[in-house]
């Protein structure tokens, strides 16, 4: 599983950092998303689904099977 976060579309609403502070932070400069862990273990999938549905801009994507 692999997370990507697009800092261009991110509006710095911080849903991600609120829901999963161990995976996401926000930059001090403009508040945009900072990925702390791009490949968390699959047990976090429910939390990530919540983040994806709550992110107001669709900046966060989760690839469940990167096809390594």
């Amino acid at each position, binding site marked *: 599983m692999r997370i990507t976060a697009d800092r261009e579309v991110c*509006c710095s609403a*911080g849903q991600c950092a609120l829901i999963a502070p161990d995976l996401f932070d*926000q930059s001090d400069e403009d*508040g945009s998303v900072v990925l702390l862990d791009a490949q968390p273990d699959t047990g976090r999938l429910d939390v990530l689904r919540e983040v994806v*549905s709550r992110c*107001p801009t669709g900046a966060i994507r989760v690839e469940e099977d990167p096809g390594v």
Partner: protein
Amino acid sequence: MSYHGGTTGWLITRHAEAKELLTHKSFSARQEGIISPVPTELGYAGPADPGAFAKTDDPIHSRYRKLVTGFFTVRRTRQFAPMIERIVHEQLDDLEKAGPGADLVEVFTESVPSRVMCEMIGVPESERKTLQRHVETLGRLSCTVPEALAAVSGMSGFLSRFVPVRMDDPRDDLLGDLIRGGQLDEQELMGMTATLITGAFDTTGNMLAMGVFTLLEHPDQLAKLREDPELMGTAVEELLRFLTISHLGASRWALEDVEFAGQSIKKGEVVTVALPAVNRDPERYDNPDQLDIGRTDHGHLALGHGVHQCLGQHLARTILRVGYEALFDRFPTLRLAVPGDEVPMRDDFVHYGPRSLPVTWDD
């Protein structure tokens, strides 16, 4: 449906469609196209002032917003918690002195958010109450044109005195940071400051007051919260959802003819998301009309959605959490001093809440 002034407009009450609209590229938040869904003389002609980014679209919107979001991140707002705690306790000291028996709105809920925001921007305390009155006037739908003009000129009078002084001598605060950043001229700094003041003052104050009123009227939920203070996080979210004080919702207008939710919306028509209805959409929530502070499935839109989602949301959450905690902790016998249905409500305001909240407690 027909909007104020007879134009055609639309109302969204479904949660899923609300999220779609607020992220849809064919709809604009620009001030010049917004028409109020309810009758009011309050209306703004023309585009938003420079820096007033809430009523603009990207890329102008994001350019401004990104300059301040660093102050409103989850982590940063947690760092403001000690300042918020100090202000909350100072206001509760005043409450203690004023009673038993006082108007909670006057002594507590109205003062805390405005003091917090003033401290962040560096607005002197001597100006705060006047600014608060102006913000209140501009949020009152029954406000007349002369009243609105007086409030607007009061606000801009303050800003044109305050901002240039700080540009000469920037302090160590939000405004100082924006000034030192060097990306904004005087007009933009004024627009930005006005946006932060109007965004923060009465929203959070009303939410604080409505939350206390609601918990006092739902003693079982309050007891549950007292028993398990860990529930405060979900309680704040549930109160935001259940109360959704932004009664007028969020409005956008179509930039082009567009098919949306099975309807043909014409260029220029306004669509309003009825946030209170959306947050009680039975397709989205089980028992939507029930207050359940343990509810974990939120995803509510009380703070909006899309790129305009509330900038101050984490600050608001911290103020609400700290405010409710300290109030119920220091005043364990807090109760309404009048029957609930006699509490005067602000029916004619953009943000709903009690006009005054008479409470009392045992000494």
